């Protein structure tokens, strides 16, 4: 029996030996640079590793502290959820709006698409430094210069806690809506024109066409834009680190801009708590995984309606 099943397997191995051999370099890199660090990170999340002294297993202590005792983590989690919700909803709506406005093949539309897409291909560090200059305190910054022209007094943009998340959302939406727009334009171009023609003959208004044809047929694109937007938004780091980091705290004034990844960095690289930081990373992974799955399921359920 064993010989009978082994023979075809051996034959298949011989047949695909070259292909398997060609996969080996990728496999080696995959194991070395993805599986190995992930395994390390998972292991470290159960330890008190400080980066220097040998790690000591602490069981679920890191996760227990994170979820039940760490007020700063809860604060970061709350900030992150507000930021993710606002940036993904506003970003997706504006992406769709831009796509509807500039989906044509004329030169003005192409130029506008290029302009809106530019932030997506620009270095995020350069963009963040630009934003930092825009919101520079005193009248040197662009935002305060404009406020001055309008007769207003100087605003402490980066030192006012209530403005922190709105500024982060603005930066994210401005930087990301061009990318979403391109995806939506691609989606719009796949919708056959006959559908709209038939709807017009039936007397459907523009809004009815949008609601009953465009939106349902763009659902796969929307799912993709929302899921990738969620993943990106949960991992926000540069904006907080570059624009809001203060002398002593990565989260800006009163931790008003503290998000999960900057908090992870702070714990790991300024407080020597790499085990704890690994636990934060795995909690973040679990959150993104669960929310993405819910989103995908919802997308599928709505398709079946």
């Amino acid at each position, binding site marked *: 029996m064993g010989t009978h099943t082994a023979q075809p397997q051996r034959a298949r191995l011989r047949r695909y030996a070259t292909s398997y051999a060609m996969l080996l370099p990728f496999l080696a890199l995959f194991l070395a640079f993805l599986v190995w660090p992930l395994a390390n990170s998972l292991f470290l999340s159960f*330890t008190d590793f400080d980066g*220097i002294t040998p790690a000591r297993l602490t069981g679920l202590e890191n996760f227990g502290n994170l979820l039940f005792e760490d007020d700063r983590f809860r604060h970061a989690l709350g900030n992150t959820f507000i930021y993710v919700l606002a940036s993904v909803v506003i970003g997706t709506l504006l992406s769709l709006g831009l796509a509807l406005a500039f989906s044509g093949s004329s030169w003005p539309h192409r130029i506008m698409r290029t302009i809106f897409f530019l932030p997506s291909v620009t270095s995020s560090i350069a963009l963040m430094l630009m934003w930092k200059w825009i919101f520079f305190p*005193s009248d*040197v910054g662009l935002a305060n210069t404009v406020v001055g022209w309008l007769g207003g007094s100087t605003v*402490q943009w980066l*030192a006012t806690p209530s403005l922190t998340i709105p500024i982060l959302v603005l930066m994210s939406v401005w930087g990301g809506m061009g990318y979403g727009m391109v995806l939506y334009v691609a989606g719009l171009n796949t919708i056959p024109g006959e559908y709209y023609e038939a709807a017009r003959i039936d007397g459907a208004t523009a809004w009815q066409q949008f609601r009953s044809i465009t939106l349902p047929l763009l659902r796969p694109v929307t799912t993709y834009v929302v899921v990738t937007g969620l993943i990106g938004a949960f991992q926000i780091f540069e904006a907080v680190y570059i624009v809001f980091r203060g002398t002593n705290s990565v989260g800006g004034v009163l931790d008003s801009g503290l998000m999960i990844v900057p908090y992870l960095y702070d714990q790991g690289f300024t407080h020597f708590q*790499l085990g704890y930081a690994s636990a934060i990373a795995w909690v973040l992974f679990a959150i993104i995984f669960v929310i993405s799955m819910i989103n995908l399921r919802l997308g599928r359920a709505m398709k079946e309606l």
Partner: protein
Amino acid sequence: MRRTMAVFCAGVLTLGTGCATGGQTETKQADTSAPATISFWSTGGDDETAIFQKAADLYKQSHPNVTVKVQTLAWDDAYAKLLAAATSRSGPDVISGGMTWTIQFGIRGAMVDLRKHGIDTLKAQALPAQWESAIAPDGTVYGVPLDMSTHALYYRTDLFEKAGIKSPPTTWEELTGTIEALKKAGVKKAFSQDWGNLDWIGYFNYLYQAGGSFYTDDCKPSLDTPQAEQALKFWVDLYRQHGAPTATVEGGDALDTGTAMVSAGSWIAKGLDIDRPKLKDKWAMVPLPAGPAGAKTFVGGRAIGVTAFSKYVAQSAEFVKFLYTDQAVQVMVKEASGRNLPFISARADKIGQSTFTPEQSAVFEASIRSGVAAPGCPGWDESAPDVSKQLQSVILGKADAKTALTEAAKIMEKNAG
């Protein structure tokens, strides 16, 4: 499926256990008479690296077998890079960075106790307050001061003249009086703070000037005192009543854009005339105004130490000692002067021989002589960000001074262990 998951998890944990951390091993020391190349990671800018490289070149003249190569680490990512080096136990033999960095790395086993190499003899040459700040709470010397910095009050002489103010403030009362006089004379931006704005370093000056302290001499948190409250109320009033901005504007920029008085670090004095020619002959500086308990100013700077994973510990420690010699200080000051850089050596008797003008040096010397350095008590580094947040909550009107200080003291107590 469940079995597959269990096997996967067990595999990951086993793999992790095997690879995550190898643990520390004693680094084998090279023969002290053999040629050595010492790598020195200097936190700061490239120009500062050049200052220390000059000292290293001079060292080679008397120690031909030892070559010291100085590399720059930018402040922003220096801490993370040093941690990566300590984790892999490879990289620099000598490091410099913030005053408490060598302690933080040292108590975890990444730095050498320099007492074993006779370096505590430098104590007599260093500023006592700065030395106490650089050594670990248990007295271990993981690092020694490398240079000094302090605060000063910079002011625009032209704006003072315009407002009819004859002299800069020397006390708290005079400071608030001058701010109001400037505002009355139409100066829109009377006062701002650069180094330590909204941060514990900013509060530090007022706290000690009021006779308070972060810790008692035996390292018990002491923020819930009337002096601490008086200092915090005065500092908060500077923001809330006298209009100091909560957002930080670099000292030079603030003066350049019409701020009449700025509390800022010593380093800005050096480049003001060159970087901002418009300001030439329009500014001056004095020590920070004194409080009810007199003049006290924060003294900062960098510390330097030898890593525990160096093959050349003895040679590196000798080089660190060399940086305190007359000829090393002389060559560093000369190089810094040539590059127009601020540099105050860590030698207490050489403070006056910095790269500043005699007038500026006199101001800094007065501040440093009456100066206090950051607390070296256990748990301070962990507490500092949370203490700053408590202070911010008062400045932003979200808590009263007494409650915030009591909370801050509790945090310090908890972190003290």
